[in-house]
């Protein structure tokens, strides 16, 4: 055997165990050198929201608002002996990614609750994962009826996830509210419905159409579009001759702003109405002057009319976040506070978070009742917000003006 060979093998033989030793080196060994400051016990509140991809702006608003609630709670020492931390996870607006994120949060024993998701489709995946681990979930934005009332929500509502709550309002209420407004206040009798074929858009459109026809109005035609498309001239040319007095759009602002502009340029000079998905400053910015006269519903009373909402907006500004709080910021802030409020009692004298603590929190969240930024925060037997106030906004000279606030009784 040559020297080189022997050395080479010797080298490997020494290196490999070294790698292994490094691999087995546990963190505990290094704790020998203490001296760093001893901190309070930690609980975490998770956020699952789209933090990458198209919906980043909304997801970031949700994350920052929860962060704000947590910071305030820590400053006020709302949970004595404990420090709350934020654990934000990206769901990329995709169900499977969301489920993965939920599994990650559920496996972190310090996590006591999750605020999210934005998309109803993602929530359908996230809720069961969190339910298995008894982690409470409060969504600021899911509006799909099935999440709290099951598949047969119209006939036999049954709550599918015991850990799931939401501060947002149902599609059926929003669509109905919009239909009543169009029929009673705008005196519109003929509408065209367009939606984006997504869970939110389709659900909202269906509930609008149901209520509008119940009122006696006529839905002339229903068309669908693809999200991501830019040119809707073809579909608009098609419905032009129908002679509608209003276009109802179920979907979100990127497509809505294009539709509104192109409709008016095609010669359909009627307002466009939508749900909370279009009530966003970007809608007006990109639709331009053509957006004037359009309508959109939103959850809760207008922030200008509520002291608490004004405080939230001012605090958010003062905290200096790079992105805006978006349409769901206030509801996310309320959702986070609903969880935080249960912590002092639920944690009690516990040394660490365990199953029983998580169970107590789920139970306690169902019973919270306090005045949040957008009204009273409390949940009914299905986990839905009891506050069902909705506001109709109209675009006037470049901004959303509240024109009617009320509730939809169905």
């Amino acid at each position: 055997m040559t020297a080189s060979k022997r050395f080479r093998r010797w080298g490997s033989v020494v290196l490999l165990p070294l790698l292994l030793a490094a691999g087995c080196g546990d963190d505990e060994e290094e704790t020998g050198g203490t001296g760093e400051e001893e901190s309070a016990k930690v609980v975490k509140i998770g956020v699952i929201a789209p933090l990458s991809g198209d919906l980043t702006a909304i997801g970031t608003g949700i994350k920052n608002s929860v962060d704000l609630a947590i910071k305030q709670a820590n400053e006020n020492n709302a949970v004595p002996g404990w420090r709350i931390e934020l654990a934000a996870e990206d769901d990329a607006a995709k169900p499977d990614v969301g489920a993965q994120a939920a599994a990650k949060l559920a496996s972190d024993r310090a996590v006591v609750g999750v605020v999210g998701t934005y998309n109803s489709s993602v929530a359908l995946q996230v809720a069961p994962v969190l339910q298995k681990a008894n982690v409470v979930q409060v969504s600021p934005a899911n509006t799909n009826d099935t999440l709290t009332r099951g598949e047969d929500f119209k006939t036999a509502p049954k709550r599918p996830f015991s850990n799931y709550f939401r501060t947002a309002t149902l599609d059926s209420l929003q669509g109905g509210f919009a239909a009543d407004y169009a029929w009673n206040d705008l005196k519109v009798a003929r509408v065209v419905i367009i939606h984006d074929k997504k869970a939110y858009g389709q659900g909202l459109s269906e509930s609008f159409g149901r209520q509008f026809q119940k009122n006696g109005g006529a839905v002339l035609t229903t068309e669908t579009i693809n999200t991501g498309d830019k040119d809707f001239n073809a579909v608009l040319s098609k419905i032009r001759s129908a002679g509608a007095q209003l276009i109802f759009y179920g979907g979100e602002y990127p497509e809505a702003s294009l539709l509104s502009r192109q409709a008016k340029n095609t010669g359909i000079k009627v307002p466009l109405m939508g749900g909370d998905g279009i009530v966003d400053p970007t809608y007006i910015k990109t639709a331009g002057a053509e957006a004037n006269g359009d309508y959109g519903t939103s959850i809760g009373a207008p922030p200008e009319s509520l002291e608490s909402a004004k405080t939230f907006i001012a605090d958010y500004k003062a905290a200096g976040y790079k992105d805006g709080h978006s349409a769901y910021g206030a509801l996310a802030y309320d959702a986070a506070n609903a969880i935080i409020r249960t912590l002092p009692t639920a944690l009690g004298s516990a040394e660490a978070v365990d199953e029983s603590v998580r169970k107590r929190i789920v139970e306690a969240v169902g019973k919270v009742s306090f005045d949040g930024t957008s009204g009273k925060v409390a949940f009914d037997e299905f986990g839905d917000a009891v506050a069902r106030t909705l506001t109709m906004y109209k675009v006037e000279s470049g901004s959303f003006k509240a024109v009617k606030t009320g509730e939809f009784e169905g």
Partner: protein
Amino acid sequence: MRARVRGRIRTGGRATALALTGAVTLILAAFSPWATFAGFPGKMSLGGFAGGARLFALALGVAAMVIVFDVRGRRQTGLSVGLGSLAVVGVNVVAIAGEGGALGGVAWGAWLALAGAGAIAAGAFLLPTDRPPGEEWRQLPAPIEASAMATGLLAVLGLVVWGLRIEESSRFISFLVFVGFASVSLHHLGLFDWMSSLFTRRVRLAMVLTAAVAIAFPFTQEGNSYWIRVFASIGVFAVAAIGLNVVVGLAGLLDLGYVAFFGVGAYVGALFADATLTTVHVHLPFLLVILLGGTIAAVFGLVIGAPTLRLRGDYLAIVTLGFGEIFRITANNWDGLTGGPNGISGVPDLAIGSVNLGEAHTVFGVSLPGFANYYFVELLLLAAAILVFTRLDDSRIGRAWVAIREDELAAAASGVDTVRLKLMAFAIGAFLAGAAGTVNAHVTSQVSPDSYTFLESILLVAAVVLGGMGTVRGALLGSAALFIIPEKLRAFQDKRLLLFGIALILMMRLRPEGMAPSRRRQRELREEAPEGVAGATGAPPGRPVAP
């Protein structure tokens, strides 16, 4: 012999001394404080022990000491260790500076480590070039080889488990850099060659050991389901990637709509499992559903393949892309069957006999979360897929595919029924994807059109190409990398995709044949590589630009 060794060392005496000094410095620095402030992961502000990422520096320092005495190949090995330590220290200096407010947060230990790492790299660089080790390892007694193989696999498992446990991203990057450069060093020492020769020589044992390690993984997770879940998803993805590898890697047909077959399987799985929202109220036994899902997907493969397989490569790519889109749009709009945009949710947990796979079980005193069961099901499916793939690769069919891939005209002239064989590749690939899809419907408990976009098809192709075309290892490595890296990059939140894009570009630049290319293909690449512009791309010269 001693004289010879001393002679060698003397030729690079100063360089060796420099590298040695660097190694000692690095080791000392590993025990010194790296940060001036408390709170950086690994208690970096304290001296006296090698905490946090300093452990990597320590290991690399010791390795450098050993390597400098190695006679052959020590220049390359030393260089990779030196650069590795530079990278590890560098990453941490940047991270510490970022967290502690500029360079004031970086303590003297880190600078010392940087100097040491630099000295190792410089010393190694100055060493005389020597012939890289190339000789074969001698065959050793069976028990020694077997235990070496077991140790190697255990080391891999240990590294994986350890890496997954690292929470802080700066430390995880240190870990990745460390493992990367350590692997390069080990490769230079010839260890990998030896290992791979062992694994090819003792195939049976290799398979048993690999299976054992794979089965052992859930037991290392302490009842925590997160990574088991990720690994189960990797399993599903890997089966699909192996299927795609039959189409792309073996037969050379570029399929950009492959995820559609996966989707067909998933919808079949959800529809026939009596999910809450199914539109077909039939509950078939799971094994039957897997076969059904695979078969229906294969039929789709034949339907789409029959008219289009006579098209040239890139045309086939766009037709498959079109098919993928048609599938997604159909799933989104055929509300009566597919549930439209909401998809089908509430797919129940699998039950085999009386065992509900969704529940947690306790095995050998270790509690396994429910997901571990799916992980095991995935392993079985994966094993089946691997078996199919390797059998095909070694058969007449596999050789015919390679012939088609390399030169279709020549293959046809030699009597290969090209259309039939291409159809077969398409159908087999689709079958595997369909089978994987049916399982995935249960793993994610829901199917919806959003999961079967063009981007997913692209990711599958990327997995195959990144890993290395035409090999099982490649498909496995590629799928694992594409799943684990984004999961680990979660810390970077919205910069994840950006980094992913950069990683794809760099990977193709540095190692275009993939992480684990097939030997046959590697050889082909080396032999070809003419200077022509389009030469080695394997594509025919294009047609004129003008009509």
